[in-house]
């Protein structure tokens, strides 16, 4: 029973990694940029939710929606204002920009909301679902349920919708996409919007289990490991990678000496890079010249 208990909290933690990892993958697939500020977008989303729900007193549900929409807007502004002028610059420069963006967002969050920890009021506090001996906090269930719904939504979106298919097309071949009528640049903005909104969802879901602080975005580094384990070009891979890292971390916390849990993500990453460098769902292929 204890194992099941640990498994569930691992899955819930893994879902958070997976959601952030999906944000990495979305942007990477569409624009071939790695956005190292993905974790900070999650942090910003959590603070937006705090502002809407705790400070402005909107209900949890409305606050959640307002957060997702406004973070989508933040994504568009970042793409238009910072990343689009970088088109054609070396990938390394773009990488540095996103790392810098992470620092800036942390500083802004600290300046606006203060560096002391805060907690987001939410409808789950203290409520626990019991099945036999098993006890699972509502906030963990919300994370798992939210992630599941998002995954199904994303699957349908990319499989069936005009916009979802256009996003895939734009990420595979820009020139070809233009000439079947896809506005590639606008699609890039939307990808950033989607990615930031996804990070916001992760932020709101994780806020009840971990406190709000400007450095909470560092979780993005573990999510980055999860994305690589999953194959860095694959959305299902990102979720699976997240789950593996999340579950392994919880078990390491139980069975290994203290301190090891924090290193689990990196150990898995190293092992993965040695054994199967292309990740679980290999989608990255060498480009033909």
């Amino acid at each position, binding site marked *: 029973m204890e194992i099941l208990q640990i498994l569930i909290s691992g899955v819930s933690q893994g879902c958070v990694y997976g959601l952030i990892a999906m944000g990495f993958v979305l942007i990477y697939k569409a624009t071939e940029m790695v956005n190292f500020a993905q974790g900070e977008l999650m942090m910003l989303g959590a603070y937006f939710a705090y502002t809407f729900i705790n400070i402005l007193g909107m209900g949890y549900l409305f606050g959640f929606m307002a957060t997702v929409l406004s973070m989508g807007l933040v994504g568009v502004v970042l793409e238009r204002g910072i990343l689009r002028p970088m088109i054609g610059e070396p990938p390394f420069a773009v990488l540095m920009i996103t790392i810098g963006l992470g620092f800036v967002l942390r500083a802004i969050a600290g300046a606006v909301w203060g560096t002391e920890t805060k907690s987001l009021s939410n409808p789950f506090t203290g409520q626990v679902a019991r099945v036999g001996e098993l006890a699972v906090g509502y906030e963990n269930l919300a994370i798992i349920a939210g992630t599941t719904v998002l995954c199904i939504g994303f699957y*349908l979106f990319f499989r*069936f*919708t005009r916009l979802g298919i256009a996003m895939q097309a734009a990420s*595979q071949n820009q020139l*070809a996409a233009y*000439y*079947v009528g896809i506005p590639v640049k606008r699609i890039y903005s939307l990808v950033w919007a989607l990615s930031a909104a996804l990070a916001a969802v992760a932020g709101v879901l994780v806020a009840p289990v971990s406190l709000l602080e400007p450095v909470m975005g560092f979780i993005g580094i573990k999510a980055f490991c999860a994305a690589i384990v999953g194959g860095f070009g694959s959305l299902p891979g990102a979720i699976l990678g997240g789950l593996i890292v999340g579950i392994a971390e919880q078990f390491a916390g139980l069975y290994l000496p203290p301190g090891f849990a924090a290193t689990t993500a990196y150990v898995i990453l190293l092992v993965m890079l040695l054994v199967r460098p292309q990740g679980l769902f290999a989608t990255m292929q060498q480009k033909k010249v």
Partner: protein
Amino acid sequence: MTALLSARNLALSFGGVHAVRDVSFDVEQGEVFSIIGPNGAGKTSIFNLISRLYNANAGELLFAGQSILQEPPHRIAALGIARTFQNTELFEHETVLNNMLIGRHVHRRTNLFGEMLFLPKVRRQELEFRRVVEDVIDLLDLQSYRNKVIGSLPYGVRKMVEVARALCIQPKLLLLDEPSSGLNPEETEDVSFWIEDISRDYGATIIMVEHDMNLVSRASDRVLAVADGAVVAVGTAEEIQNHPDVQRAYLGD
């Protein structure tokens, strides 16, 4: 009869290099119009101007009487212009069928939520798209490749798939950039047959850039010869081949 496409004094330069200078021509509705010229003469530049990949420095470009020089590249398909590329630009990891279905993108008339729920309207639209695609597959004999991934196909077939995708747009004007490059003589001969079929069955006007003079003479109604970015002569393939200025452009004095 008004021209489907008319270029008026088009000019394009890259720094000090004049890739296209003062080029004017008219392409009539329904004709097959070829652009020929030595390497570096500006053929592909003219193509890229029409498909809005490059911005003209001067001149005017009218499609069905409307200026298109301000249109962004992604609007070209919706206007009814489709193009292929010399070295093919396909969605490499997708099947032939998916590559063709995305050609229907500009014709998709359903909304996001209907699509996610796959409502009956969306289903009807998909079936209609599939019919358009199957007609093109029949026309170009791609039946056996329908579910093959592009990356696994030989070059000649890929070039056909790109033409097929362009046809799925159901364009009024089809731009073919060197349709025979990289093909063997037998495949090149097929090109002239399917150009004829496309022109007849789809009523599409075709402009092609081509090096193979056999193909040009067999397939085209009129030919435009360019050299050093400027027009040398326009006429039937025979007139062009015997034109003293054209011979001079190719062979030198």
